């Protein structure tokens, strides 16, 4: 009996504490994004959408947003393309140094981003490459690649090899097999990998802050704005917006994951 009653309050309190820790700060963010005042303190001073309208009027902020989108789109596209080739190579071909390739490819997941950022900064200054959005994009390609690779390898592990053999038996060359059978079947995984790499790049700060040039990405810009109190509400409004977009991406990923996990036989009931 004691065990039951203990568990009776322990589990809910753990759950509520977790929820509070996770969502209270976000809730505060949300509240102040709509609060009509530049000082972030209670009592609240009334509802406003001013910060959101100012947000879109702040050119530097909009520029950094555009920079972030461009960098994220470019780097995730390259990372996903490389990851797709890499995953197919790893899963389908035997070659020397395969284990080494995988370890090296996944390394960015284990190296702290700050360390990676400093290393890249040193490298860039050594070879004399000027810092710009290009350098951020290159760095983010490296950072996003292992995420996309892991997602694609996981999909290809469950891929029936006989499907490829069947295609070849029916007269398809290797490339035709890839285009007509393999790629369509792993398309959801490619998309999920791309979306993940995009998100990682979009909110990555540590590396970007090191290799940034004159044009900042959004996280770098937001951080630079924190020093100026008057601009704080706008930063908060932006954060709220990003939060909403990230949530949308998260649910898209979740949906994709279900789509991939579902065996094809279950798509609809078999009619007798």
């Amino acid at each position, binding site marked *: 009996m004691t065990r039951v009653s203990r568990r009776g309050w322990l589990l809910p309190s753990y759950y509520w504490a977790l929820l509070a820790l996770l969502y209270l700060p976000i809730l505060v963010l949300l509240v102040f994004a709509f609060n009509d005042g530049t000082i972030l303190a209670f009592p609240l001073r009334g509802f406003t959408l001013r910060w959101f309208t100012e947000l879109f009027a702040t050119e530097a902020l909009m520029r950094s947003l555009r920079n972030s989108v461009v960098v994220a789109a470019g780097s995730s596209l390259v990372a996903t393309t490389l990851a797709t080739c890499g995953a197919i190579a790893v899963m389908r071909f035997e070659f020397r140094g395969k284990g080494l390739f995988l370890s090296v490819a996944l390394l960015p997941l284990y190296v702290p981003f700050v360390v990676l950022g400093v290393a890249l900064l040193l490298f860039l200054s050594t070879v004399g490459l000027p810092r710009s959005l290009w350098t951020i994009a290159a760095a983010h390609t490296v950072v996003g690649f292992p995420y996309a690779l892991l997602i694609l390898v996981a999909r290809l592990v469950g891929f029936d090899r006989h499907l490829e*053999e069947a295609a070849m038996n029916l007269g398809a060359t290797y490339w035709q097999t890839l285009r007509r059978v393999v790629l369509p079947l792993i398309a959801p995984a490619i998309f999920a990998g791309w979306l993940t790499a995009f998100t990682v790049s979009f909110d990555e700060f540590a590396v970007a802050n090191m290799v940034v040039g004159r044009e900042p990405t959004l996280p770098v810009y937001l951080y630079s704005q924190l020093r100026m109190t008057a601009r704080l509400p706008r930063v908060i409004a932006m954060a709220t917006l990003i939060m909403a977009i990230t949530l949308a991406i998260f649910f898209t990923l979740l949906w994709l994951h279900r789509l991939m996990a579902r065996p094809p036989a279950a798509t609809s009931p078999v009619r007798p």
Partner: protein
Amino acid sequence: MTPAVELRGLGKRFADQVAVDEVSLAIAPGEFFSLLGASGCGKTTTLRMIAGFESPSAGQVLLAGDDITARPAHLRPVGMVFQHYALFPHLSVFENIGFALRLRRTPNAEVARRVGQALDMVRLPGLEHRRPGQLSGGQQQRVALARALVSRPAVVLLDEPLGALDLKLRKAMQIELKTLQREVGITFVYVTHDQEEALTMSDRIAVMDHGKVVQMADPRTIYERPASRFVADFIGVSNFLPGRLRTAGGDVQIELSGGQLVRGGAVQDLPDGREVTVAVRPERMRLIATGSAGSAGPGWNEVAGVVRNVVYTGSDTQYFVELGTGGTVMVRVPNDAAAEQRIGAAAADRVRVVWEPSASAVLKD
């Protein structure tokens, strides 16, 4: 006539393991040929070498006289039905079957006509727009077959295609597959571990063990004249009686361990006095209760024994008889009215086990 498929000294070695060892055989056009063996005997590897998915370590594969050993899989005019069908889950039934035609840029009307024909052939019309996931196992099997047949290949390779179906459906499909094969006249190379399936459908069977073909013959010969103890044991059920060969004139006699002589079928090139095994199928043996008036045919073998066990299995009754010469044999008697009246033996009854000399296969091992 040029064989549809010919294997010459075909071998496959994986690392330090020999999967297929010097397999040579020739399959005639229009033949239903089965590779039969337990899992790991090399039958699937042999099939995959014909399809071009594995490259042989030794030997050659010939298709209608052409050496295709070095030809890549996609250039070999052979169809294949995979064990789990390997239908493309993202394509409709129509596109699955039409896959090979689309690759060759066949005009739409022609694709539609031939896919329709193939679906008719496997008796599955009207399901063109379904996805494979929406079909039952039996239907998927038919789609896989239609896909393999649509480009009219000279040879179709089948890798345990009925393995995933339930028993009843499997039996029905066996007959249907055989009928279809005879109708279209395409050479079938069929891999299975199910001996009954091989016996039911094949024109010829190659029994494989440890990468080698141990016997190649028509089903009747394989069943009634097994070449070795392995074949006799693997195909159906056999009673084995150890003995010694005693050839006297044209008559083949075997002295069983108790000293009793039984007569056997033809035997080649074995010296007198050699140790042999006599294999007799349970359904070829008869029982006669000791003291009853019943008698065996003239010249039949006869060994006395005691019934130890009687097992009723519905269609027939199995009698386990301990022989006076040592060892136990199983005698299978069909449960028809005549047999029931004739035997009526129970456990501990003394009986005589009798069989025709031609029903005993004399084996070297």
